[in-house]
């Protein structure tokens, strides 16, 4: 026998969960608390915000002043490891299309990176009536009890607004707007855009019944992950508490290769490679739950081929990887001349959105089928890499202290003073809209390429069409109106038809869902409405893969609610001995 061997564990777990983000974390949390013996495999390192966060570090504590690196695509202080490219783990694209795939291999996955913006899908998001979007096999009313439970379990701030498709939750008090944000509220109102308090999973009040998590102390750094656990991360709020039950085991640096099945097509466990010792392992479980992220779970299923599953596990419909959707995104930023030389105070507030504009327009009167919401920000934020880059341009546009205009650019005491005067007058607005679910937007296995573990990689094929491009144009027109009404000056590059109105490339908004969509017809969907494989009854997918048609709302709160619902369904099916 040679050196190469596969280490098989004799232990049979009740369930193995692949991935530790919002979906995997929630499933493990519910099952472990119900006494089920769970093994969680995470492809990256262990991470506990209490120990490993950069919270409250100053920019000079990073030699690059918080700039991004290959290892940390959202900056040196950001909690999320990883970026658009990972060493040794390539992905490819087809026919000159583009899809950028952000991966964060670490405990908590991309809940370490996200903006904590926590919006429920509304009744019309599950059952759209625009004539184009496909309907989910479930309604808002079926999911509402789970959203309620997620709100109570994890905590969320917001305000009761009574808007039809922006369902209210069980809210803590929201943070107040920063100064530039008050100008946004005022300008948006004049432009006919309703702005309401943000909804974010940050504890602005103590969470009833929870002694582990602190409340927000307003440093504005949720993106670094909160050491006091005052924001929601899957690690601090789900996985670490689940580990404390004694029913969850966690193996980090475990890169899953495939799901193992028997001759009857039942899942029996998974195989993985340990990044620590580069050895191959197999573990057995009665139920396999994939929460590796929409694309990674699709990849695992497509790579899990056997005589029973010649096209990949659970892929009798041929739809695994199909209907991939990311949100649209387009943005503008500007400055408020009224705020030059503004008085200083601590304006950090929270690290999520303080205010946002929900989508309230009637698409029947517009040339795109689904809408977008707008996220706003601005204020005297902590300086970092790229500080004040617009100042040497706009110091020639706005008058100086003496009321006179001068030549843009410059140097010396006068420029130094300009940096002070311009500080905190900047604001930004970003649209996040519905990307339509289409059969022709997909990921598949690249027949020629493997990663450094020998696992075949994903190949993407994704294109926007006029539904998204027209929506981005509408965003830009709306932004321009708001900025005009605010009395602001746009400072970002103007967008137009030549750059699809600033529409970000597919993948850039990191809201990808839909690769293993749910449905009642097994020929037209991969999962049933409980996120259970039509083909393989003890296989479940709890990440965003099940989403039939995304909404403009960020997917995390829905991933959490659906994963909780699926975990409770698994408990029910176990008690009936169906799985």
């Amino acid at each position, binding site marked *: 026998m040679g050196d190469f061997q596969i280490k098989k564990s004799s232990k049979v777990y009740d369930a193995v969960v692949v991935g530790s983000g919002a979906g995997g974390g929630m499933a493990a949390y519910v099952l472990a608390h119900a006494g089920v013996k769970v093994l969680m495999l995470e492809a990256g390192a262990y991470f506990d915000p209490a120990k490993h966060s950069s919270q*409250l*570090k*100053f*920019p*000079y504590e*990073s*030699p*690059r*002043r918080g*700039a991004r*690196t290959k290892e940390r695509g959202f900056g040196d202080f950001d909690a999320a490891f990883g970026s658009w490219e990972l060493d040794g783990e390539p992905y490819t694209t087809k026919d000159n299309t583009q899809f950028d795939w952000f991966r964060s291999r670490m405990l908590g996955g991309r809940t370490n990176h996200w903006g904590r913006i926590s919006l429920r899908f509304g009744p019309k998001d599950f059952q759209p009536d625009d004539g184009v979007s496909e309907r989910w096999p479930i309604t808002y009313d079926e999911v509402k009890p789970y959203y309620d439970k997620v709100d109570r379990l994890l905590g969320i701030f917001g*305000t009761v607004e009574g808007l039809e498709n922006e369902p209210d939750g069980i809210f803590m008090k929201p943070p*107040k*707007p920063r*100064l530039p944000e*008050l*100008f946004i*509220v*005022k300008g948006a109102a004049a432009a006919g855009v*309703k*702005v*309401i*308090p943000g909804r974010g999973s940050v504890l602005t009040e*103590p969470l009833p019944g*929870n002694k582990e998590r*602190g*409340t*927000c*102390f*307003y*440093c504005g750094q949720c993106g670094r992950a909160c*050491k*006091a*656990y*005052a924001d929601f991360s899957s690690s601090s709020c789900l996985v670490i508490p689940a580990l404390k039950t004694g029913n969850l085991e966690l193996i980090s640096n475990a890169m899953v290769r495939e799901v193992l099945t028997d001759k009857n097509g039942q899942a029996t466990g998974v195989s993985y490679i340990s990044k620590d010792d580069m050895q191959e392992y197999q573990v057995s479980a009665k139920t396999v739950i994939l929460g590796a992220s929409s694309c990674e779970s699709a990849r695992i299923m497509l790579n899990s081929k056997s005589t029973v599953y010649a096209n990949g596990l659970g892929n009798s419909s041929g739809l695994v990887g199909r209907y991939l959707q990311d949100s649209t995104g387009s943005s503008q930023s500007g400055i408020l001349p*009224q705020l030059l030389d503004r008085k200083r*105070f*601590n*304006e*950090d507030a929270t690290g999520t959105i303080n*205010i946002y504009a929900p989508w309230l327009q009637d698409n029947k009167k517009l040339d795109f089928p689904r809408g977008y919401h707008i996220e706003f920000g601005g204020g005297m*934020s*902590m*300086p*970092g*890499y*790229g*500080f*004040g880059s617009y100042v*040497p341009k706009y110091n020639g546009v706005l008058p100086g202290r003496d009321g006179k205009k001068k*030549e843009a*650019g410059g*140097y*010396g*005491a006068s*420029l*130094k003073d300009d*940096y*002070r005067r311009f*500080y905190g007058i900047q604001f930004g607005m970003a649209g996040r809209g519905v990307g339509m679910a289409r059969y022709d937007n997909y990921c598949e296995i690249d027949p020629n390429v493997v990663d450094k573990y020998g696992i075949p990689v994903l190949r993407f094929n994704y294109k926007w069409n006029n539904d998204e491009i027209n929506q981005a144009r509408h965003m830009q027109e709306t932004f321009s109106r708001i900025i005009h009404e605010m009395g602001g000056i746009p400072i970002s590059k103007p967008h137009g038809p030549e750059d699809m109105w600033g529409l970000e490339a597919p993948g850039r908004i990191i809201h990808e869902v839909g690769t293993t969509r749910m449905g009642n017809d097994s020929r037209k969907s991969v999962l049933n409405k409980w996120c259970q494989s039509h083909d393989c009854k003890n296989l479940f997918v709890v990440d965003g893969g099940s989403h039939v048609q995304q909404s403009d709302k960020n997917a995390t709160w829905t991933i959490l609610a659906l994963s909780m619902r699926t975990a409770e369904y698994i408990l029910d099916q176990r008690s009936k001995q169906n799985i």
Partner: protein
Amino acid sequence: MDRRESLKALGITTISAGVLLDACKPKPKEQAEKAAANTGDTADRQPVEIERDKKLHAETFFTPHEMATITILGDIIIPKDEHSGSASDAKVPEFIEFIVKDMPEHQTPMRGGLRWLDVQCMNRYSNAFKDCTRQQQLELVDEIAYPGKAKPEMQQGVAFFDRMRSLTATGFFTTKMGIDDLGYVGNVPNKWEGVPEDIIKQYGLENVKLG
């Protein structure tokens, strides 16, 4: 857990927070040393990141001649004034040396730009930039510091100066000295009650209502 307890969890009690922060305030003469230095707390770093930074710190990119030029230019861009010290007081040249190693896309434009500057000065004043008189240095900088009025033949210099100015601003305003000058008072545990009343009044925003 309430706010007080969550600060305790961070090792900061509400009483000691201020004291701690005061105690941490370096004396002015120590500021320069501290300015560009990492605190050495690496619990938030991945091993690969620690390795990378160690390797970059050990390398040298700019020659002493180039560093001397960067130092002079940096101090022309951000000089000492009644509020704070100069770019070199805040160790901006050291930051620029690091960042070009970290972001190799800066290397050729910076090296080439410095050489462009020296050649200009040699032709005009028979000296490299750093050996010119202050008046000569400023004469040249005046021709590349204002993109709107620079001559077409000076465009390469404009592009270089723009980059140098950006890096200097980052390098300065991200230090303790620069942050104090700017008046950024955040990054401390606090309670956010919204924009102070007097400032709301100053801008006439009393009637702004959400929703």
